[in-house]
């Protein structure tokens, strides 16, 4: 293996062009005092932010990305210990007292957060939110006009009327606009956006990202975008910093870094994202679990999970060094990307097999309590028809509120529909002969939040055995044997099965939930957003597992997700839902390559994609070493 010659040096952006940084973070260390000793969340972070740029910080849960940002404006709880420096206009923000830091917040550095609705006080009007910020310096003139203008600037219609509304009367996207309107009132030099679009639908996400980009250009405002979504970073960021275990492992210009990452972690992260337009399955995964912040390890923190690990990696801690074009914290940076051979999608239903599930003209209604007292109905699912063949994986895509979960609950037999029919193996559901218990033995449901789906006080193995106690009549030893087998199939190892859900990671919990659903060998599995709460590397593991098991057991699967890229890699056929109706359905290739309904086209266009073509490469000054077009992993469009 040829090693790229490199020299240790100070992290200095290659594209900075000698500009002076707006914010310069040096050796930032953050630890939290806990009963079990200190937890080191950030372990020496050095980073420069230049005026007007958008910097993306990417990492999995617990990598320290959010903590670093909160540390800069001293927003961490009292139990935190912060070392290092953060120079802003010659002032070290970390050395300031709470009284001294306050003027910087909002006027120099503003923040917006995830889940915009919970970031607004539920019992206060939008006006009183804006008033707090606008009237901050004792300025009590024209409060209303200023608030109105600020909302209007964020493209909120009839701002005068909306000022009187409460946060719960705003949609997620609108609430995020209000948050941004509050954050940019003080004309800050830096806006820190902490997962600003994670809780939002994909079409809304596209709009908010566009807003942020425009604002950055217009106000010459630098943005630090914290996210776990590489697609979002690729969409709007100028530079990217990848964090792992409290340290930056890779830093550089976005296009260059993502098109030829040198750190194995970045490369593995990229490979674990399902990419539309590429039927590659199984997804590449990163072995093992992300290293928790309270774990100490000698040598490279990524070594236990790295597939290129060498002896030296386990003893020597690597420094952030300049590689070909950007900075990498790796002793043996990867030279160039190999071309990934395209694999054919495995599994899939055959044409002539009979339909297992047949849904006809299904309508589900809810009664609304209307103020005037008249009865009104809301059709969550409206006249939906589809059928799923034996062994097929059928996906339902739609944004929140499109009725996909209501549909799934009806198919599971949990809520009877208003009209229409559901047939399972030619047996109608909700008829007099239909028995829920026998049905539930054949059909199982996997929920989005595994922690909520598991009993917090019961060991995993007992929970997995429960379906056997309800449906089967096996002896105790047999039950335990079968539970262990199923857990092993789902990739949960023996040492973990007596633990309680709280002592497992998110991925392990979802494996336990899957094991519980699969122990009775169901014919049909319904998965409601099975991976949406997980980091991409874990998400890939679970999706691979689901796909493999479905194939092995010849199981029919209905999978629901708002994430189109997940669908592309999992499903044989897809149905797209909009406002309770299925506007388009068909084989996955057709939906993704030739969507006919305008809404499906909009959905496709809204997904943040990591796409680099020759044009971008040509512009990139560092592109000369970047390899040819064919060698690039991510090439869409």
């Amino acid at each position, binding site marked *: 293996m040829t090693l790229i010659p490199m020299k240790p040096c100070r992290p200095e952006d290659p594209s900075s062009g000698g500009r002076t940084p707006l914010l310069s973070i040096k050796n930032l260390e953050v630890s939290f005092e806990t009963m079990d000793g200190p937890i080191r969340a950030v372990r020496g972070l050095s980073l420069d932010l230049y005026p007007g740029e958008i910097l993306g910080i990417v990492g999995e849960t617990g990598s320290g990305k959010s903590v670093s940002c909160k540390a800069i404006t001293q927003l961490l709880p009292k139990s935190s210990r912060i070392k290092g420096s953060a120079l802003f206009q010659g002032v070290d923000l970390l050395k300031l007292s709470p009284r001294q830091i306050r003027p910087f917040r909002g*006027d120099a550095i503003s923040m917006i*957060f995830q889940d915009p609705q*919970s970031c607004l*006080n539920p019992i*206060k*009007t939008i006006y009183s939110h804006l008033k707090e910020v606008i009237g901050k310096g004792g300025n009590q003139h024209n409060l209303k006009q200023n608030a109105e203008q600020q909302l209007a600037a964020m493209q909120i219609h009839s701002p005068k009327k909306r000022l009187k509304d409460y946060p719960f009367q705003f949609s997620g996207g609108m609430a995020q606009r209000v948050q941004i309107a*509050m954050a940019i009132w003080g004309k800050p030099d830096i806006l820190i956006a902490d997962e600003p679009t994670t809780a939002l639908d994909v079409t809304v996400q596209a709009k908010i990202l566009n807003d942020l980009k425009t604002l950055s250009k217009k106000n010459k405002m630098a943005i630090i975008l914290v996210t776990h979504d590489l697609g979002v970073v690729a969409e709007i960021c100028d530079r990217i910093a990848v964090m792992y275990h409290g340290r930056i492992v890779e830093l550089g210009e976005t296009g260059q870094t993502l098109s030829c990452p040198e750190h194995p972690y970045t490369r593995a992260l990229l490979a674990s994202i399902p990419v539309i337009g590429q039927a590659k399955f199984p997804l590449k995964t990163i072995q093992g679990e992300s290293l928790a912040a309270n774990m100490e390890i000698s040598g490279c923190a990524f070594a236990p999970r790295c597939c290129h690990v060498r002896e030296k990696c386990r003893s020597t801690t690597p420094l952030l060094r300049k590689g070909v074009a950007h900075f990498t914290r790796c002793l043996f940076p990867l030279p160039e990307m190999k071309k990934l051979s395209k694999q054919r999608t495995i599994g899939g239903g055959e044409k002539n097999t009979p339909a297992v599930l047949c849904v006809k003209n299904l309508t589900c209604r809810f009664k609304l309590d209307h*103020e005037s007292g008249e009865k009104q109905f809301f059709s969550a699912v409206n006249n939906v028809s589809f059928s799923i063949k034996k062994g097929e994986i059928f996906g339902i895509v739609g944004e929140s509120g499109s009725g996909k979960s209501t549909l799934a609950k009806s198919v599971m037999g949990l809520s009877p529909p208003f009209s229409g029919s559901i047939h399972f193996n030619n047996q109608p559901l909700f008829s007099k002969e239909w028995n829920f218990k026998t049905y539930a033995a054949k059909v199982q449901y996997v929920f989005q939040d595994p922690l909520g789906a598991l009993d917090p006080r019961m060991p995993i193995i007992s929970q997995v055995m429960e379906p056997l106690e309800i449906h089967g009549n096996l002896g105790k030893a047999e039950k335990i044997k079968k539970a262990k087998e199923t857990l092993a199939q789902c990739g949960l190892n023996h040492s973990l099965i007596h633990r309680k859900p709280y002592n497992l990671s998110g991925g392990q919990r979802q494996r336990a939930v899957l094991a519980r659903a699969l122990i009775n060998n169901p014919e049909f599995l319904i998965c409601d957003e099975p991976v949406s709460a997980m980091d991409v590397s874990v998400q890939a593991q679970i999706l691979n597992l689901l796909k493999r098991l479905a194939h092995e057991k010849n199981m029919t699967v209905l999978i629901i997700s708002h994430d189109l890229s997940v669908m592309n890699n999992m499903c044989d056929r897809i149905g797209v839902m909009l406002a309770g109706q299925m506007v388009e359905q068909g084989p996955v290739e057709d939906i993704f390559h030739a969507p006919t309904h305008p809404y499906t086209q909009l959905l496709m266009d809204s997904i943040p994609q990591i796409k680099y073509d020759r044009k971008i490469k040509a512009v990139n000054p560092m592109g000369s070493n970047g390899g040819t077009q064919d060698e690039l992993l991510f090439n869409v469009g």
Partner: protein
Amino acid sequence: MRLPGIMFKRLFAFMDTRSYFFVKLIRAFITAFLILVISFLMIRSSGNPAQIYLGDEARPEAVEYFNRKWGLDKPIFVQFTSYLSQAVKGDFGNSLIKTRPVSEIIMDRLPATLSLMIPAAIISIVLGVLMGMIASLHYKELADTGILIGSTLGFSLPNFFFGVLLIFFFSIVLGWLPASGNSTISHYIMPLIAIVTADLAIFTRFSRAAFIDIYEHHYITGFRSLGVRESRILFFQALPNAANALLTIGGFYVGSLVSGAIVTETIFSWPGLGSLLIASVKARDFPLVQGLILLFGISIVLANLAIDFLYGIVDPRIRKGVTT
């Protein structure tokens, strides 16, 4: 002034959501009616009043006369309707012992109780919320632990014991304060201290929990990250949210004020409703007991109705009929 204008507007907006308010109102009426029925039946079910009052040895003529005088010879339904029509007019009959109208006796005693309980409630609520606030701001620090220990001690110290201790110390040993009665301001000091030490703990605990919960919310960090002053965050953002949680406990508390601090009133010989209740139970003065129970029950119902109404003013989600 701006405040009444806003209150009036909010009141009006609240009336708009008819269903919420009318459901609460109807529920309050039903509860009040049930209290009437129970208090009526309770007296009838504890044996023949004539026998209890006149004794087992009473002559039949006397019993008959007694029953006729109090209307006890009529069918129970007729008795109830006449009781109901009188109760609505505020007439609860005459006390058996004092031979004065029950309502008059109660009205005589009410000012003494209220003049003690209202200041006690105001001090307990204001001081309790303040201390809860301080404790939550210093969560898990010395101030928090101190306030927690202090409030637990105050609450768990038996009222009769603490009252007697106060009398012994300030009246007998030092001779500074009068031990019984309510004629001067100095008479109020010891009963107030005895009541406040116990009730303070309730509000300290509740407001501490409410503020700790609220400070976990993202919007607090949100305002802080935009440079809003801590004091503004505390009083204009956190406090209104805490009010929501405190209203629930406040409703029960305010409703029970009328019954007075029964133990405290007895110890300090306070001429209020609490000591009246004890005395009338002892004397088996049933009309008086019945009147008092009605009064205590109705005041709890009214207080809770007021609280339901206040929820709507404090929380727009209830006003707009949104469930979360």
